[in-house]
């Protein structure tokens, strides 16, 4: 983070520095030009006329520097009639900075002359003498550029020194702010380490507002994983405990020398019972319930897969499964749990319906994590109202004719309850049973 801000800062200050430098240069150059122009006008004002009325430069010059050799201010005048004049300051130097101009034209330039850099203005004028003859003159004034260059260099050095210092200071301040800003995160990190080492159970601290969403979610996650583990432990304990009775019965039957027919009956019965116990505990242990921060599972594809699978299995029947699942219908939890719910409900409908099954689902509210309602209807005989409760009980089979599968409604009920949902049986539009499941929107508040 600091590296990025350093680069950004460097970029900004660099651009600012360059802009300032350019501005200063332009301003210095403009001032220089104005000075030169000023000198040209002063010379013109000081000029005399000779007998014919032509321009003549006097010996008394407007600026004393014109009179001193190597003063840094030089002037040269030439006329189209051959007139030539140069300032005394030019003694011993060359006048090579002269660049004749047509009247009204001026030209600024920087030239090297005699080992010095000069800033020059060449200015063309037209002068009418007493006889009406136009004579063209070019006045060239040159200033020593060194002092100006030195001034610009000094400015530049000072500028970059200041900007550099500013950059360092800004970086320091920024570093301090970032460290100070991240301090709460470090305290969260320390608290998490204490949880890891077992010294604490949850994040308990005064965290700034910006972090409260994060700490709440983390606590929910910790609680959820902890309760998951506890559930597993409990289920294993329950399982071991519940198995003892059927095992004891089996053992007794074997040891007591029961007749083989009786033994067979006891074995089958206890096997069935143990199987139910195992299934029940497995489901309870595996129900991840409302996983905090669970992913959204789209209902439509799952319903589609199950419908296709059932179509294969019940190819003989045949059953028409109509899917009316909204795109927005989503299940917040384990995909396996959704498959169990839909699979069991839809298979029951195929089994007990005559030809038609309808499946539907839609989100309960608008928003990012809505609840879910799903329902399955068939055109079979339906379930009598006084048997609704019985049918939802664990292990109770309303029909004994279809062997092996058992009624899946009790499975569905257990899963739905683990998600704090509701299940309801009624008579559907197709004439047979309608089973409706409602799952509330997921929330972290229970953790």
């Amino acid at each position: 983070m600091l590296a990025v801000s350093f680069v950004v800062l460097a970029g900004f200050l660099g651009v600012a520095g360059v802009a300032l430098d350019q501005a200063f240069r332009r301003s210095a150059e403009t001032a220089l030009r104005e000075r030169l122009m000023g000198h040209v006008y002063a010379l013109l004002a000081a000029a005399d006329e000779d007998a014919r009325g032509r321009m003549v430069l006097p010996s008394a010059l407007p600026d004393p520097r014109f009179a001193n050799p190597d003063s840094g201010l030089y002037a040269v005048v030439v006329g189209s009639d051959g007139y030539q004049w140069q300032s005394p300051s030019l003694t011993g130097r060359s006048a090579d900075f002269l660049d004749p101009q047509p009247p009204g034209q001026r030209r600024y330039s920087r030239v090297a002359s005699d080992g010095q850099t000069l800033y020059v203005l060449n200015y063309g004028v037209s002068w009418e003498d007493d006889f009406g003859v136009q004579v063209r003159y070019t006045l060239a004034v040159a200033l020593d550029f060194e002092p100006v260059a030195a001034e610009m260099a000094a400015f530049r050095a000072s500028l970059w020194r200041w900007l550099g210092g500013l950059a360092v200071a800004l970086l320091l301040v920024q570093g301090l702010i970032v460290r100070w800003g991240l301090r709460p995160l470090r305290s969260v990190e320390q608290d998490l380490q204490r949880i890891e080492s077992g010294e604490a159970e949850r994040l308990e601290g005064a965290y700034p507002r910006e972090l409260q969403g994060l700490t709440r979610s983390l606590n929910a996650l910790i609680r959820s994983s902890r309760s998951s583990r506890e559930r597993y432990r409990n289920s294993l304990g329950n399982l071991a405990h519940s198995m003892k009775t059927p095992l004891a019965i089996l053992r007794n039957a074997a040891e007591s020398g029961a007749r083989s027919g009786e033994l067979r009956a006891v074995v089958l019965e206890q096997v069935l019972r143990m199987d139910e116990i195992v299934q029940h505990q497995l489901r309870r242990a595996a129900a991840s319930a409302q996983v905090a921060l669970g992913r959204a599972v789209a209902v439509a594809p799952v319903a589609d897969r199950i419908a296709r699978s059932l179509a294969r299995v019940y190819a003989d029947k045949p059953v028409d499964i109509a899917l009316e699942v909204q795109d927005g219908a989503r299940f917040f939890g384990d995909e396996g749990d959704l498959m169990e719910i839909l699979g069991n409900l839809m298979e029951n409908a195929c089994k007990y319906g005559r030809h038609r099954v309808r499946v539907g689902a839609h989100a309960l509210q608008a928003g990012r994590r809505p609840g879910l309602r799903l329902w399955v209807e068939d055109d079979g005989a339906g379930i009598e109202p006084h048997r609704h409760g019985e049918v939802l009980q664990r292990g109770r089979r309303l029909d004994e004719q279809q062997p092996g599968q058992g009624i899946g409604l009790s499975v569905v009920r257990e899963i739905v309850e683990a998600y704090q949902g509701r299940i309801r049986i009624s008579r559907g539009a197709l004439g047979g049973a309608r089973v409706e499941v409602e799952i509330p929107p997921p929330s972290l508040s229970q953790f």
Partner: protein
Amino acid sequence: MRVLVVEDEAQLLEQLAGHLEDHGFAVEKARDGEEGLYIGRELPLDVAIVDLGLPGLGGIELIRKLRAEGRDFPILILTARGDWRDKVQGLEAGADDYVVKPFHMEEVLARINALVRRAAGWSQPRLRFGPLVIDTRAQEVWVDGRRVELTGYEYRVLEYLTLHAGEVVSKTELTEHLYAQDFDRDSNVLEVFVGRLRRKLDPDNRLQPIQTLRGRGYRFVLGEASPAAR
């Protein structure tokens, strides 16, 4: 009918195989996925039972490979966990039905018979050919309302021929589908069975349900009245 059973739990495999043989199936056994794949590729089969929880080459992969190679006999999957994810995956891979462990042997038998019958194009368990009715669930045969007693092998021959009604079934094909690999095959035994079948089904020589095509095989030719799926 010839059935392949792929199951890694040895005791369960023997139980299944024994039960199936008792009910007239010729059984091929495989203890893991690779063996199942080999048998599934090489031998003619009518149906297969595959356990999903196989080590190495898993049940679902095995089914996928068999289907990918064009082996289209029906497959029944056995699953211990019974969760829908496994069932759906198995069915999507190419299986046709499933049974959850622990299962009733009768249920496996009933489903296998249903799958075989479905694969032959029959959607109902009762096959009707004019005066001849075969109940594939109870494995009973009636002609003109009169129950006909057949031995196990006689029934199997009749069942195979009727499930391929109208098709020419060579003696080789018949033998392959009736006997497990290591059984001693003798095509003369077949002729005896067919002869007995004819006598029992058609004592007056009126119906002539089974036609012999010299050098090619047998064909069941009694008219079909109402196969729902045909």
